[in-house]
């Protein structure tokens, strides 16, 4: 951290918050609120005179409330920048008549009660989100008595008690009588891997943290009796198993079983714990002088501003969603934004450093270039046809469209930010938006080519580039057999499949049509396939109103690995095709003969394609 503070090319804004982010990859504009410290950080040399005279004492958050701090304080001795700050909530008021003692003793005149928040505008090329984590609050699990018994502490509090820089200078004592305990227990998975209360995921670090704690404890106090109550010890990383072994060799007892209610002996303050040792199947009672709850991680409680500012999404467990779980684990779905550390998922220091290094390297790629080369597959807007209705803006998963409904400013695509899914093109009711390399004309021509001869023998399949089309590839590579009647039309995303494409296929005499895309969490364009689903549901209604069986339009999610599923779906589609009669196809053609293309331009396009 010190090195970062001193580095000539790194600017650190400590005690600051991001207020606003606009722009796109390579051209982000960020507004930062630098909160008032009330101490001039450039002048302060941490002499400590102000702390001596400050009359306020409040619990020290850094020491988990085990000791107190003053209203003017430094969070931790190694903090960067090395400067005090005044917490105005605790200060007796920035009224020099009321107190003002710190300002009196400060030789360098650093203290300024009238300091205001500053706003700083930055222009940056890439953003790395490293907002960190919060820890699980074990008060919810009442059986462990964290709120009732003083000698039940969390692993974070343990960390302060055994730390040389902690409130006890590293002398390990228990809170109730300030004596070094002779026995100590650790309960694992507090708030982790719990379906009903707590969090369903594994927090990744608590096992090894406890193993490290026991080794540390045994180093300092070899006579202390340590027991760990666990359900699985997940020592999965490099050197982890060795440390686990060292802990066991040091005499730490590992008991497989999660305890029930904890009771306290009111005289001694010792804790009585009932647990089934699942290896022996016997119920044991343990009398322990102290108990440590190994608490898990939870996503940052208040990161919403960041999430909104950067159009990020989250996974079910509340951590930020990466662009792709395997291939792009560092990138956010929004281009030019990267993740480092626990903001993305629970991970230990080593993994955080690995991800941070990768994020820095990914960001460096963007910063090293004067001009950014982007994929040519982007949307384009015909401004003459655009009515600035903002539908495309709502559909765009990347918010890469600038449009103003009130001022009637037609839509414009930010091509650097556009990922090229084509959802905007499919949603535009006026035919104003189309996609390079997947234009309406190209796709109508493909439909024509498929259905010009013997349309009743064909199955029209719209497959997305990343999952369903690759699933078809997988089926081919695996030599899976499926009917030869299917004809695939590739689009980048299933979100590109316009209502018109489907209706036009039916009008041309297609017996059945399949729209296929990635599974919901796997969509390569954040949530563009949600729009596909909505659109297909709309189409089902429309077909039903026209007297056409909606079953003839099918929607399937097929991933790139599901070659088997692809072949199976094709077989099912073939069965459906056989059931569609000639009369039905003729009826459909008639029912859809009045199909009007949206927008004037599309009429021409379609006329050309059919000609």
């Amino acid at each position: 951290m010190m090195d970062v503070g001193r580095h000539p090319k790194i600017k650190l804004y400590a005690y600051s918050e991001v207020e606003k982010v606009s722009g796109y990859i390579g051209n982000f504009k960020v507004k930062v609120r630098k909160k008032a410290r009330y101490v001039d950080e450039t002048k302060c040399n941490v002499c400590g005179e102000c702390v001596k005279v400050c009359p306020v004492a409040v619990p020290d958050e850094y020491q988990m409330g085990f000791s107190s701090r003053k209203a003017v304080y430094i969070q931790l001795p190694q903090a960067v920048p090395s400067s005090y700050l005044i917490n105005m909530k605790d200060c007796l008021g920035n009224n020099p008549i009321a107190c003002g003692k710190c300002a009196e003793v400060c030789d360098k005149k650093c203290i300024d009660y009238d300091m205001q928040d500053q706003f700083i505008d930055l222009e940056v090329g890439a953003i790395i989100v490293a907002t960190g984590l919060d820890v699980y609050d074990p008060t919810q699990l009442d059986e462990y008595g964290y709120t009732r018994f003083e000698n039940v502490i969390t692993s974070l509090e343990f960390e302060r008690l055994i730390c040389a820089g902690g409130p006890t200078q590293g002398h390990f004592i228990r809170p109730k009588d300030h004596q070094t305990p002779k026995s100590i227990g650790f309960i694992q998975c507090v708030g982790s891997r719990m379906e009903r209360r707590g969090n369903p995921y594994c927090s990744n670090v608590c096992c090894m943290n406890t193993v490290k704690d026991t080794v540390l404890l045994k180093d300092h106090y070899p006579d202390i009796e340590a027991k760990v109550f666990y359900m699985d010890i997940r020592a999965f990383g490099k050197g982890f198993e060795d440390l686990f072994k060292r802990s066991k060799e040091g005499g730490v007892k590992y008991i497989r079983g999660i305890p029930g209610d904890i009771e306290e002996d009111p005289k001694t303050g010792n804790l009585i714990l009932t647990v089934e040792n699942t290896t022996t199947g016997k119920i044991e009672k343990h009398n322990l002088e102290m108990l440590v709850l190994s608490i898990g991680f939870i996503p940052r409680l208040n990161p919403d501003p960041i999430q909104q500012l950067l159009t990020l999404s989250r996974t079910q467990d509340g951590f930020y969603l990466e662009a792709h779980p395997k291939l792009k684990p560092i990138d956010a779905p929004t281009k030019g934004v990267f993740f480092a550390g626990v903001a993305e998922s629970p991970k230990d220091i080593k993994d955080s450093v690995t991800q941070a290094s990768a994020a820095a390297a990914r960001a460096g790629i963007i910063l090293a270039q004067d001009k950014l080369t982007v994929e040519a597959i982007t949307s384009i807007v015909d401004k003459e046809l655009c009515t600035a209705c903002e539908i495309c803006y709502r559909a765009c998963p990347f918010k890469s469209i600038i449009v103003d409904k009130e001022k009637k400013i037609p839509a414009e695509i930010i091509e650097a930010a556009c990922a090229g899914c084509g959802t905007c093109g499919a949603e535009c009711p006026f035919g104003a938006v189309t996609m390079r390399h997947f234009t309406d004309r190209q796709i109508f021509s493909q439909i024509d080519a498929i259905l010009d001869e013997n349309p009743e023998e064909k199955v029209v399949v719209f497959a997305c580039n990343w999952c369903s089309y690759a699933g078809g590839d997988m089926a081919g590579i695996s030599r899976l057999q499926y009917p030869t009647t299917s004809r695939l039309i590739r689009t980048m995303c299933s979100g590109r499949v316009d209502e018109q494409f489907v209706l036009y296929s039916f009008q041309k005499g297609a017996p059945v049509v399949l729209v296929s895309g990635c599974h919901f969490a796997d969509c390569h364009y954040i949530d563009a396939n949600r729009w596909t689903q909505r659109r297909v549901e709309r189409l089902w209604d429309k077909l039903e109103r026209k007297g056409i069986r909606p079953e003839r339009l099918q929607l399937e999610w097929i991933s790139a690995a599901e070659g088997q599923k692809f072949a199976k779906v094709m077989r099912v589609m073939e069965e459906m095709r056989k059931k569609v009669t000639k009369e039905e196809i003729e009826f459909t053609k008639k029912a859809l003969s009045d199909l009007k293309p949206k927008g004037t331009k599309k009429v021409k396009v379609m006329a050309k394609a059919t000609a």
Partner: protein
Amino acid sequence: MKLVNFKFRHKLNTIIGGEAHNFCYQCGACVGDCPAALYSPAFNPRNILLEALLGDEESLVGPDSVIWDCTNCNTCYERCPQAVRPVEVIIALKNISFEKGTNPPGVKSILDSVKESGRTVKTSSLSDRRRKELGLKEISIVPLEELKKLLE
């Protein structure tokens, strides 16, 4: 070597509350606070779940099964991190056992008593007299017709 009896597990899966047994990861959180396990060492909810995972039909719903020791106190429901609801799995097992007729005779007599009088414990002339002596109200009669309809 014994094989997992999937037939029995499938059967358990079809009964409401029984399907959750699949998620048990044998952590033992249900045992520490179980009052039945405290007094009867043979009764162990974790072990019952393990046997359910193995599909040990004989031990679970046989005539010597320990499942009837369960007091339905729901503590295991509160403790279980996996939301298995051991108490409901045990109730599902009890239902299977009752279907097979391997339940303890006492259970049948309680059921008969409910069908006849609407009460688990029948009233007697002695209990009526005692209530009178203590100045308690007379016990109201259970509307049996309604009960019969409900049971149907």
